[in-house]
Each structure stands twice: as C-alpha cells, then as structure tokens.
C-alpha cells in the first residue's frame, strides 16, 4: 500500500486546487447571477435560419 504515499498527497493537491478554484469563483462573482447564463448562451448565434 506504499502507493498511498503518492496518491494521498496528489489527492490533497488536487483538492486544494479545487478549493482554490471554488474560492476564486466566489470572489470573481461567478455565483452572483445563476439565472441569466442559461439564457445568455442561447443568444450567441448570428444565424437566424434553421439548418434542419
């Protein structure tokens, strides 16, 4: 089980990175508006015609 000496630190680094990403997201106001992103992504196409 010596491999754990590698896997546990790797997991901790990964977790710390994830927590860091979460922290950045909160402070970068990523979670301030959870309603409009779902609609905004629909509006980015220029074409109006159906392709099917």
């Amino acid at each position, binding site marked *: *089980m*010596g*491999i754990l*000496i*590698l*896997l546990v*630190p*790797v*997991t901790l680094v*990964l977790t710390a*990175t*994830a927590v860091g*990403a*979460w922290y950045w*997201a909160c402070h*970068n*106001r*990523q*979670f301030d*508006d*959870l*309603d409009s*992103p*779902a*609609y*905004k*992504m*629909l509006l*980015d*196409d*220029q*074409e109006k015609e*159906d*392709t*099917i």
Partner: protein
Amino acid sequence: MTMNPSNSPDVAGAPGNIEQFSYDDAIVRKFVWATLLWGLIGMVVGLLVALQLAWWPANMETSWLSFGRLRPLHTNAVIFAFAGNAFFAGMYYSTQRLLKARMFSDALSKFHFWGWQGIIVAAAITLPLGFTAGKEYAELEWPIDIAIALVWVGMAVNMFGTIAKRRERHLYVAIWFYIASIVTVALLHIFNSLALPVSFMKSYSVYAGVQDALVQWWYGHNAVAFFLTTPFLGLMYYFMPKAAEGPIYSYRLSIIHFWSLVFLYIWTGPHHLLFSSLPDWAQTTGMLLSLMLIAPSWGGMINGLLTLRGAWHKLRTDPVIKFMVVAITFYGMSTFEGPMLSIKSLNKLAHYSDWIISHVHGGALGWNGFLTFGMIYWLLPRLYGTKLHSLKLANAHFWLGLIGILVYMISMYISGLTQGLMWLDFDNDGYLVYPNFIETVAVVIPFYWLRFLGGVLYVAGLLVMFYNLKQTVSGVTPPEDTKAEAAPYERKPLMGKFHYKLEAKPMMFTVLTVVAVLVGTILEIVPMLAVESNVPTIASVKPYTPLELTGRDIYIREGCFNCHSQMVRPLRAETERYGTYSKSGEFVYDHPFLWGSKRTGPDLHRIGGKYPDMWHLRHMEDPRSMFAESIMPSYPWLLTDQMDLAKIGKKIKVMRQLGVPYSEQDVDNAESMAKAQAKQIADNLAASGVTGMEDKEITALIAYLQRLGTDIKK
C-alpha cells in the same frame, strides 16, 4: 488593456467599445471530420474483434490481426480517437462562443489537432505490432505517452489562455466541465503512465502488483469519468439547450452536480478491484463512493432531460433531439447500473463477465456515441452554412443505431448472466456444476453472434450518417469564420504584472508550463521511488527468472490479459475451480500487474504446474487441439519465431532499478541463465516429440506459464 496575441484578428479598443472579432470555425470542422473518420475505423475494428469472438478463424492466424492485439486498438480508437475528437470539436465550438473570444492561439489549435491525429496514427501502427505497456486504456508505450502529455499541455494552455482573454465574465457550467476534464486527465495520464524504458518501444511500469492495480484503476475509472463523462456533460450543457432552443432546466442544479461529481468520481476506482487482493477498506471506500455517485450523475441526467420541458414535441420530428434525449437516457442508465455493479454482492456475479461489456457499450454507444451524433447533426450544417441533406436519413440512423445498441446490450446481458451464474453454480453435494471452463464459453457463442449483429447495425447507422453529411457538404465552400462582437471585459491580473504579460505569449507559456509539470512530476516521483520499500510479505515469492520474464513480455505483447485474468477471488466457486485465492504478496514483482478484467478464457494465476510443457505447446499452436470448442486464437508463430534475448540483460537491469531484488550477476548472466532454462524445457518438449524449441518464443512463454502461482506452494 486587452490582449493581442500574434494571430488574433481582435481589434484593440478602449474599454466600453464593442470589439469585432471572429471565431475559429476551421478547427472545429477539422475535429468533426476526424471524429467521424476515426469513429468509423474504431467501430469497424470493433466489428472485427466481435466477429473474432463469435468465429475464431477471423483471427486469421496472423499476429497483428489477432484479438489480443486488436482489442486495445478498438478501445483506444473509440475512446481517444472518436470520443476524444468529438470532445475537442464541441469544446472548441462552444468555448469560443461562451467566452465571446477567439481561441487564444490558432497555432496551438493546429498543434493540438495534428498532434492528436499523429498520436492516433502511432497507436494504430504500434498496437497491432504488439508494442503495449499492458495496462488497459493505457497501452501506448512511453514515447507516445510523452507526445500525449505535450499535446495535452498545449491544449490546456490554449483553453486557459482563451479563458483569460474572454469577454464574458461568467464561466458557463460547460467551461467548468472542460476545465475539470483537462486538469484531471493530465494528472491521471502522467501518473498512471510512469514507466522506466527498456528500449524505444518497451518499458516497465514503475508500480507493481497491488499498487499498480490501484493506480491503474484510479486512472481507468477516471478515464471514464473525466474523458467520457465530464467532457460530454459539458457538451450536453451547451448543445442540448441550443438544440432544444430553451435554457437548461436548472442552472443551480448544474453547478451543484458539477462540484459533487468531480469530487466523488476520483474515489470510485476500487470498484474494479472488488474481491481482489486490494485491501478491504479500499474496496469498501470504492463501493460506497460509487453508490453516492448516483446523485450527481442523475442530477446531470435530470437537468438534460427536463431542458425539454415544453418542447417534448420536438422529439417526434427532430433527429438531433432524438439522439440527445436517448444519449442522456443511456447516461442515466449507465450511472445507475454502474453503482449497482459496484455493490460487492452483485459484483461477485458480474465481474469478469459479459455483463460488464454490456454496461460499457450502453454508455459508449448510447451516451458518447449518440450525443456525438446529435451534436454533429446540429453542428456540421452550421459550420458549412447550409442545411442538412436529409432529415429522413438522420432519423433512419437514429433507429438503426438504437436497435443496434439494444441488440448489443441485451445479448451481452444474457451472456454475462449465463457466465456468472454458471461460474458460481454448485450442486447439492458441494461440487461445481460446470467444472470445465470451456462449457461456459461454448454456451454463449450464439450471443456473441447477436452482439456482432448489434454492432453491424450501429455501424450501418454511422455509414448512413456519412452519406447524409457528404451530401450536405458536397459542393459547399466552407464559409469564413463566424464574425462576432462584444464589449471587452477588464480582467484583473491573477498573479501580478510579469505573469500577466507572460499569459499573452502562448508558445512561451506552453514551454514553461511543460517544464513546471515535468519538474513537479520528477520531484514527486524520484523520492517515491527511492523511498519505496519492496519487502515481500511472502518469503517464498521470488522474482521471475530471465526466461520467465521474456515469456511474460510475450504474454503482454500478445494481449493475453485481454481474455485471461490472474486474480483468483476468495470465493469458494473460484478456489474450487482454480486453487487457493490470490494473495497480494504474490504480485510484488509484477511490473505491470496483469490481473485482467475479463474472463473470456479461464483465470491463469494458478496455471503453473497444472499441465505438462507439451500441453502448453499444443494449446498455443492450436487451442482446439486441447479444447474442441475453444474460441482462442491460434499462435503458431510462437513455435517458429526466435525469442529475442538481446535485451534481457537490460530488462533485468531496469527491473532491478524498480526495486525487484535481482543481483548484479543476474544482470550479467541473464542471457545464459535464460538459455540454460530454455534448454531444459526444450529437452522436455523433444522427449514428447517436438524438437528445435530451445530458442523459440514458445519456450519462454511456457516457462512463464509454468511459474504462475507456484511460489506460495514452495
């Protein structure tokens, strides 16, 4: 202060002005065609290996066409070439539009595309030739692994660079899924692929036995998680609302299930190792977390399906919606079935059987395949500024594919259940009802034919798609890159002015990132290898002799581990059939481990000493000479090809570096030791009527097989 990377057509403007720019559509077109081409090739190889299981002559007595070598070609092609290119196609299209920015570097985009296709070609050449590391979904040898890492880092820099220069502050949930995929796959690949090279196309895993098993399935299940699931969830979150022309059902749910999914998935690897020599606590952890994974996975399914609320009528007419809805449904099925299969009591029945094959293909053909098809039917006409040639043909593809999946899955359910139940069956006197493994093979052949039929239908659907898309784009000039405009978004530097400026130089940033990753990797690995203690827990377990190691490498080359396991579980049904259950201490010198994950043929861990040398020679030459109903390929070339002892000294040396207790004399005398042992076996064979085997590969393989599982009896 907006960024101006060298290739960008962006126009700098004072903050507050609308900027004009364009999206790189050419790269998306490339990835879409690559997806389709490799999908066809990978699935045709799949048809061939399916045929080989139903009808063994399809192995054609040719080494580079035999099942053991082609199965990994199939898995690599459909996972990395088909699903991989599909992921990239959708990611490049959606990322640019979600972030309102062209890709950070067109040059990196091209490097990614051509690098990835080059890697696939390298796989297509090396795998049939038998150059394999012997680890599932990680078979490619070390030079190709390095190429994968480089291309992946280039892609990561391109993606993060695009995120940095975005004009949309909010990172839509799809982007989070892409980020998780990119970061995690990099880690998984690097750590699982660690190996010491013996030569240009041969290496040994730095891990051994139980360790290797754990790292391998940490990788293997998370390849499913972060290569086949999270990227496609990202694609779903973009393309499903687009196709449905309505927003995702619950944006909040998407965030919750994203974070819980990525946290839970990593821990599920041990569910591939239930009842193995992996410690109980690790098995239980894997089982529990796999069960917990139902919640976030179904969060994704519910979100995707309910996006159609108010638009269910589109299912009737729109093939894109059909493909996507069915894809999401199969995702839900697989993410329910997977956790169920992770429960020890059910796993006892299903492990090593065709049930697992059914499970995999439901996810692969249903979720990955159908989502890819739906996405491409939506995407390709747009990329060419035209309409899809035929709705009818797209619908026909859908039905052909769906029936194909169902025929595949149901035939494999029946086969798997049959095998599992037969393997576990005892009579009232306590004896195995089916003591001969071959009985459990012969009875499922009809289902192997059905499975082949299922695959044929699925590929037929893909051919219909090819025709439809060819008609769609024939004579059409691809339009110029889609133009867009958006207000710039002032980005604050993450880490100070120097770093900010560096982030604008794609090539430099890529090189430095590679260096950083490599330094980090080396700093972690070298101490681990140095500190690593390899004290065997079983004193009688010794390293393989040079000849046996040569034979082991032949076993790996021919892909025997694709059909034969080497892990007798502590279940009475197994100990009665194979001998005492496998102990973890027996595998300490196995670089790589060869526990296998499927029993198309019987477990081999206790095969040592069971049959005479001559039996093995005849069996490898033509398995039907020993078992009339065998479906195993013939390996006649092993009796004529000379064993390659040129590198045996180097191999022993590398093993020694990895901690296997060979002596200096073992390294120096490896070749003569091998020849001496080979002579003994050859004399045995000559006494039974076959001469001239001293220098042939079969002798090395026999030495290895006769050693298996015998150490603990000493």
